[in-house]
Each structure stands twice: as structure tokens, then as C-alpha cells.
């Protein structure tokens, strides 16, 4: 499909406002159009167990599949020099669900997926762990693991970090244009201010979109039930019916924010670091009632051909000096503790930026999504999809008694 997104020529595009999440928002959409293809092809050829994918994997090559614009210039070159390995680095991880849709058949059949190390978000990592598709990581080979933020070592998605090591994290919170709103935005209720009608966007991912709404309703997403999700989705649907919400976005809220079509938006913090550099009116806030922290993790699929090399790369990432370079390039939140000194060596402004190097009290206000049973998660996705898919506006809700698409009985 030739209609794929523009690909930035250099990684410096990160510095001019094109973050990996904005990039992937666009490409994910298109990948959606293509997803049918692999699905059908694998459906046809699903039986040939012996077919061995790329076949380029070997012990002196390390194949990494990462998000676009999620690495520093020359990072892999220095790793190659340090390790003697050749890195085959691909920025072909566009979106968790799309990646999953494209690779699940191969992984289920234990066929090579062309990557020895992948960087999914922790919720996806949890799914992969529960499916038994990841190799354990030998912490003995990662001496720098002691640099990691201790709270991440025992995340609910992977207790003991046996199968996944964090790569970067970021906040899901609210961005607003203070010049336009005329006041700071601090709570979810602020999003529903009639003065902002039609100038608010929400994230279409159900966790990113609904979690902070659930917290504002006094529910603890850590113990999320389908009813709580429905309650939050109903509130969003009500506001959507009123025309309060302009759109549900992936990561493509940036255009609307910069052109001031939208003045309050649910966003990922890393994007706002970059946008705010150009537009000082843009502010980011973690809502009073709490926000979410997402964590992207390094995992080794059980089809890996270079376990040792993957672990070596993880160790290299966890070196503070190396990691500081990554932070400078990607501008998300470090998963290593006390990065202030290292960041100051590179750029004092970076170290002082609370969105890149957040103080502990902000970290305390955000939580990560608990890992849910598959059926529950799927139901929740379907519930929110009814709202974002425009299936719940007036006159459209299905007759009472029919639980509708939210709860497929199959």
C-alpha cells in the first residue's frame, strides 16, 4: 500500500515535533488498512511449520524491532563496537495491537518473527507472557539492572521483571492551551466545561481514554470491573452526544492542538514536551484524581535466535551514560532511577523538565493499569469502542435488554 505515512528523513525530526507516538498514530491507522492482508495470507499458509521466516538470525546478529523515533543517533553503532555484534534495527513496531495482529499467527506456531528483541507496551507484554510467548530474561547477564527504578521491578504486568524490562515510560494526562482556556486545567470535570464545546479530544485506546475518567468517578482502576468501565464509558458517551468531544484520537491530536482547533486533550506526555517547546501556552497536567503511566518494555520472543545478544543490548541500554543519550533523543520518562546527574551532563534543561525527569511526587500520582483477564479486557475494549465508534449516540443505542456489541456472547 503506497498510502503509508511520511517517514522522517532523520531522527532529528524528533526534535522538531515529530515524536514516535505522533508518527505511529498516523501509520497505525494505515496499517489497519493493511492488516487484512497478512491475516489472509497467514490463513492460507498457516500450516507450513517448517517455513523459517527471515532466516537471517544468527548469534552474531541481533534483530531489534522498535517503535519509530525511539532511539538515539549512533546508539546501535556504539553497541556494535562494544559487543562485536551486528544490529539489524527495524523501526517496524507501529502500534501494539497492529503488531500483535500481524505476528500472533507466527508466534502461536512458534515461527521466527524476524526479531530477537521487541519493545511492546507493558499491557501487551503481559498478554504475551500469559500466552507463553516470551523467554525469561536472565538478570545475571544484566549487571546494570541495579540502575532501574525499583518500583518497576515488580510491576503487576510482570512480577519480578522475569520476562520484560522497562525501556521508557510516559504519562497519559491532559494537555491544554492556557491562552485559550484562560485557566489551568486540573481535573476531568474541566474537560466538560461547556465553554470548550467541540474543542476537546480524548484518546481512543480504552485504557488511556477511560482510566483517568474512572479515577475521577472515584473508582479504582486497579480493581477495574466491567461495570466501572461501563460507567466511565457512559459519561464519555453523554459528553460526546452533547458535542463536547470533537474526536477520539490515536496519537494524531498534535495538529489539532497546534492549530488550536482543540484546546483540551488527552495526550501522551512525550508529545507535549516537544510541542510545548514551540508553543509555551501548551501545558500538561496529570489530573487531580490521578493519571496513568504507560511503560514500554523490552521483551525477548520465544522464537528469538539471539537470546544472549538481546540481553547484552538490554544491559547496554541500562548503562546510565548510554541511557541519558536515549532520554535526550526520545524525551520520554527514564525507567532508570536518579538520572538527574547524567542528564545534567548532557543538557541541564532536560534534567529540569518535569515531564522528562519527573519528581517523585508526580510519579506517586500516576498508576499503571492492572493486568486483566483476557475476556474482561476484550469486553472493556468493546464497550469503549461503542463510544469511540459512534454507536451510542441518541436514537442509536440498541433496544434495552440487548447487551449489544459490548458483550459478544461468542
Amino acid at each position: 500500500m503506497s498510502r503509508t505515512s511520511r517517514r522522517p528523513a532523520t531522527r532529528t525530526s524528533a526534535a522538531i515535533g515529530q515524536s514516535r507516538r505522533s508518527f505511529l498514530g498516523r501509520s497505525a491507522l494505515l496499517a489497519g488498512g493493511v492488516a487484512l492482508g497478512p491475516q489472509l495470507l497467514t490463513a492460507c499458509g498457516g500450516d507450513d511449520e517448517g517455513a523459517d521466516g527471515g532466516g537471517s538470525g544468527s548469534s552474531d546478529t541481533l534483530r531489534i524491532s522498535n517503535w519509530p523515533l525511539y532511539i538515539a543517533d549512533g546508539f546501535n553503532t556504539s553497541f556494535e563496537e562494544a559487543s562485536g555484534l551486528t544490529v539489524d534495527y527495524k523501526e517496524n513496531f507501529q502500534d501494539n495491537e497492529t503488531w500483535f495482529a500481524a505476528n500472533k499467527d507466527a508466534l502461536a506456531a512458534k515461527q521466527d518473527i524476524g526479531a530477537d528483541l521487541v519493545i511492546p507496551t507493558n499491557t501487551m507484554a503481559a498478554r504475551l507472557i500469559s500466552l507463553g510467548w516470551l523467554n525469561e530474561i536472565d538478570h545475571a547477564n544484566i549487571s546494570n539492572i541495579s540502575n532501574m527504578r525499583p518500583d518497576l521491578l515488580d510491576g503487576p504486568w510482570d512480577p519480578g521483571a522475569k520476562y520484560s524490562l522497562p525501556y521508557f515510560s510516559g504519562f497519559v494526562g491532559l494537555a491544554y492551551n492556557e491562552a485559550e482556556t484562560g485557566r489551568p486545567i486540573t481535573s476531568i470535570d474541566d474537560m466538560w466545561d461547556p465553554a470548550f464545546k467541540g474543542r476537546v479530544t480524548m484518546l481512543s485506546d480504552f485504557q488511556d481514554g477511560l482510566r483517568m475518567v474512572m479515577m475521577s468517578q472515584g473508582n479504582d482502576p486497579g480493581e477495574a470491573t466491567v461495570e466501572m468501565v461501563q460507567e466511565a464509558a457512559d459519561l464519555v458517551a453523554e459528553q460526546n452526544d452533547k458535542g463536547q468531544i470533537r474526536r477520539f484520537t490515536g496519537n494524531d491530536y498534535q495538529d489539532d492542538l497546534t492549530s488550536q482547533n482543540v484546546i483540551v486533550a488527552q495526550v501522551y506526555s512525550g508529545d507535549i514536551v516537544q510541542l510545548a517547546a514551540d508553543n509555551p501556552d501548551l501545558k500538561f497536567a496529570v489530573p487531580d484524581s490521578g493519571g496513568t503511566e504507560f511503560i514500554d518494555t523490552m521483551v525477548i520472543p520465544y522464537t528469538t535466535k539471539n537470546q544472549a545478544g538481546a540481553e547484552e543490548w538490554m544491559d547496554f541500554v541500562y548503562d546510565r551514560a548510554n541511557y541519558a543519550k536515549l532520554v535526550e533523543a526520545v524525551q520520554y520518562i527514564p525507567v532508570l532511577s536518579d538520572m538527574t546527574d547524567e542528564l545534567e551532563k548532557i543538557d541541564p534543561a532536560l534534567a529540569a523538565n518535569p515531564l522528562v525527569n519527573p519528581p517523585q511526587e508526580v510519579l506517586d500520582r500516576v498508576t499503571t493499569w492492572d493486568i486483566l483477564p483476557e475476556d474482561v479486557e476484550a469486553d472493556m475494549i468493546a464497550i469503549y469502542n461503542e463510544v469511540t465508534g459512534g454507536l451510542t449516540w441518541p436514537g442509536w443505542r440498541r433496544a434495552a435488554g440487548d447487551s449489544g456489541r459490548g458483550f459478544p456472547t461468542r
Partner: protein
Amino acid sequence: MAGVAASGRRQRAWVPYAMIAPGVLYLVVFFAIPIYTLFKTSLSVNSGSRFVPTLEFSWQWSNYTEAFSSYQEQIARSFWYALIATLIMIVMAYPLAYVIAFRAGRLRNIMLGLVVLPFFVTFLVRTIAWKTILADDGWVVEMLGTIGLLPPEDRLLSTPWAVIGGLVYNFLPFMVLPIYVSLEKIDPRLLEASRDLYSTPARTFGKVILPMSLPGVLAGSLLTFIPASGDFINAEYLGSTRTRMIGNVIQDEFLRVKDYPVAAALSFVLMAIIIVVVIGYTRVLGTEDLV
């Protein structure tokens, strides 16, 4: 002697088959097999887990009723938008094609080039560019506001008008080119004859030019209506939840909800409706001269 001739004829008999073989092979591999798998999927039930579905074929026709009843609004909206967009395109493209064919003179090739030029930029970027043009604070919205032509939302983006406008913009060349081709084929002597027989310019147009260019309009309508009704990019970027089209729903069902059978059924519903519409359309207007 006769034997040689016969064998020559026999030899030649398989040549046409050999010549269409690559095309047939291509169709089988990239059309027939995928369509067959998609059809099977659309009649399957998921007996596995939600995220890693194991599809079992079971003549599950309820997938179709579910797809149709749950999403009739999006289906209807898709065709409604595509229809409006197609009509707008005919109105815009016909005069343009007419000028290029009859009045452009030496500029003809340049004008044709300009019609095609937008294709040098990807579909996606062109669509996103409209977000800048139609921005709430932009001059387009301001101007329309001044003359009181804004939709009730007081903006253009995230309204049906932006989506339909995006469809028109993106598919317009597919309307201009076929109409141009059919106009360009008209023998100028027919127009002279019409004038010699004291026909007014309007009658010449109505009796000679328009009927002879209808195949172009028909071809253009098909080339634009079909992709426009399945389009999801314009609705995604220029629209809102209230403007979602069937393409967006199929995408969501595949990627987010992972209900493959219903998504596949929706694809077939879309195809079926398009086929019915196309057959009806060609029945009325005829296809003999279809370019």
C-alpha cells in the same frame, strides 16, 4: 500438409490461454483465494480466546445479520456520503474536462498534468493538509462564517462537510480523466454538422456532446463512488464519531475488537451493496461504450 496445418492450429489454440495465465494466476492468488478465506471467516465462529481467535467454519449467517443490524447507520452513511461526493464531483469535473477537451488548446497537456499532479503527494498527507486549510481559526472558516454558510457546529473540521469535501478532493481526478477521454473522442465534425443544421450551442450540447460523453461520466462515477464508499481515511482525519463510515468500522472490528467474523461479514455486506448499486447503475445507463 493438412496435418501440419492442423498442428499449427492446435499450437495456436493454447496460446491465448498461456497469455492470460499470468493474469489468471494473479487473480487466483491475490483475489480468489483471499476472497474465499474472507468468506469462510465471515461464516465462522471464534472457539478460541478473544485475542488469539481460533476460527471454526460453521455457516454462521448470524454474523451477517449482526453486522448489518449493528452498523446499518454507518453503512447508510457511507453510501450517502459517497453519493453526495460523486454528484459534486460530476458537477465540478464536467466543466473542467470540457474546457480541457475543447478549449484548452496548447495548454491541454499542462492542464491534464495539473489534474494528476496531486497524486504525486500521498493520499494521507493530502488529507491531513486539509486539516490546516479548514482549521477553526483559518481563513476558510472565517470567510464562510462571515457570509453565514457555516454548518451548525460553527466549524468545518469534524463535520460531514469536511469528510465529503475530503472525498471530493481526493477522488476528483478519477472523475475528470474518464470524462475528458470521452469528450476528447468526440469527432469535431459532428459539432460542425450540428451547427450547420442550425442547432443552438445549448442544443448541440444536449443532443450531441452530453450523450456522447455519458460513458465517461458513468466510468468516472464508478471509479469514484466505489472507493469513496469504502474510504476510511477522510472520515478518520476530517470527521468525528458522527461521521464514521463503514471502512472505519471494519478497521476497528479487525484491530480493536478483534471480531474477525463480523469484520469479514461487514466487508461482504459492503461488497454486495456496491455490486448491486453498480449493476443497477449500469443497467440504467448501459455499458456498451464504457471506456
